[in-house]
């Protein structure tokens, strides 16, 4: 039987955003905790240096919401993954995010884990990242000094690293409404079917105009130091005829865009190969969601 020891720490429970931002600004060696499903494991297993202060942001109501208006969808950073999974409006408007969340952890973990936590933990294998990247999402970061909005593409800077300053808090994820008549799909490959981490996962979003690819967006996780967009492959597909042959030819470019490592889950070679295969499948499935019948 394993016992993990958690070193002594102070636990803060701000009830408002202002209070939380003041605490993050004033406290020495403070870390934000939301669901804790990554942070507590990291503290227990020595993955990070335990902080002196934890600031729990899940008592702040204004960080938990799903708002939809004519231009965008806004999700509070402390919204749980299970709340996202059960949201009918998200299922209808951005199914690619809901599909990704459905593949994450377990019911038990999703009841605790938050979307902001998944992004701020900045694992290269974060599963909310590929769908949010193809949706051109932005994240809102607040501090006592003010507020800034950063495209998610520019948020991650390396494994477990982001542009967040020590006194900053992610408060909202802002997702522009996807283009009309776009098809999307998330596909994840893990070592098993449930409660698993990605070997690689791909999100795709496609729009077809006059039988040709109009908009194509592709994002992958677990195959580079951060989740990435496959911009070269996207560019190669845009304007081309929609056919299996074209897709199979162009997705080969993905192998050049990824930069995977070998770890306990898979080898770099396997990840590179599967990046191509999953990208092909995600594009084909996105097209099927638009009603296209493709001959294989």
């Amino acid at each position, binding site marked *: 039987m394993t016992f*993990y020891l958690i070193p002594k720490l102070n636990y803060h429970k701000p009830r408002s955003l202002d209070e939380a931002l003041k605490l993050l600004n004033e406290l020495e060696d403070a870390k934000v905790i939301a669901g804790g499903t990554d942070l507590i*494991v990291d503290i*227990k297993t020595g993955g990070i240096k335990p902080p002196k202060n934890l600031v729990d942001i899940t008592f702040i109501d204004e960080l938990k919401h799903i708002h939809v208006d004519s231009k965008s969808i806004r999700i509070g950073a402390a919204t749980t993954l299970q709340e996202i999974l059960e949201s009918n409006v998200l299922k209808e408007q951005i199914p690619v995010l809901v599909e990704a969340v459905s593949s994450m952890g*377990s019911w038990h973990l999703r009841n*605790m884990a938050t979307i902001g936590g998944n992004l701020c933990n900045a694992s290269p294998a974060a599963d909310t990242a590929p769908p949010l990247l193809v949706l051109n999402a932005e994240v809102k970061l607040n501090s006592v000094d003010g507020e800034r909005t950063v495209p998610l593409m520019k948020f991650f800077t390396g494994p477990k690293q982001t542009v967040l300053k020590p006194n900053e808090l992610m408060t909202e994820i802002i997702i522009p409404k996807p283009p009309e008549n776009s098809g999307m799909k998330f596909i994840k490959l893990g070592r098993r079917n449930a409660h698993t981490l990605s070997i690689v996962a791909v999100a795709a979003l496609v729009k077809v105009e006059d039988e040709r690819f109009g908009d194509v967006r592709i994002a992958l996780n677990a195959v580079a130091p951060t989740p990435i967009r496959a911009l070269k492959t996207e560019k190669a597909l845009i304007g081309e005829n929609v056919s299996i042959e074209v897709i199979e030819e162009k997705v080969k470019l993905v192998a050049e865009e990824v930069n995977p490592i070998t770890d306990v889950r898979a080898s770099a070679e396997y990840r590179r190969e599967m990046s191509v295969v999953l990208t092909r499948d995600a594009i084909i499935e996105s097209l099927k969601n638009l009603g296209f019948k493709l001959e294989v």
Partner: protein
Amino acid sequence: MKIKFTLNGELVEVEVPPNMTLLDLLRRKLGVMSVKRGCDRGECGSCTVLVDGKPVYSCLILAPKIEGRSVVTVEYLSKNSELHPVQEAFIEAGAVQCGFCTPAFILTAYALLNRNPNPSEYEVKKAFEGLICRCTGYVKMVEAVLLAAKKLKH
């Protein structure tokens, strides 16, 4: 620090060190031994409790987080000393082997049936995806939940 929450319907006020997990608070301070320590790192699910009706891993929650919440353990289901239909169904379906993971599976099944009285086999499996049974007795546990759903309808 002092925290207040309800445990199986009763108000509890207790002094806890902020680095104590809910799992340790329940087992070591409050003597609730049905909540099991398995992996202690959010992988096995044996420490499952319900917080505000939702199954969570108590090994990943620091005690201060449950301030003002409702915590339910398997003891709550047979509070009036009669077995709950979910517990009866687990016995009738033969869904218990060594018993270590049983409280976690029963609580998860109870939470599932509270929100979805008529789950499909897939929905039961999806609800159980974060629970590990070392005896691998999953088939009968899924059957038990479907049987419990029938029992609860009558």
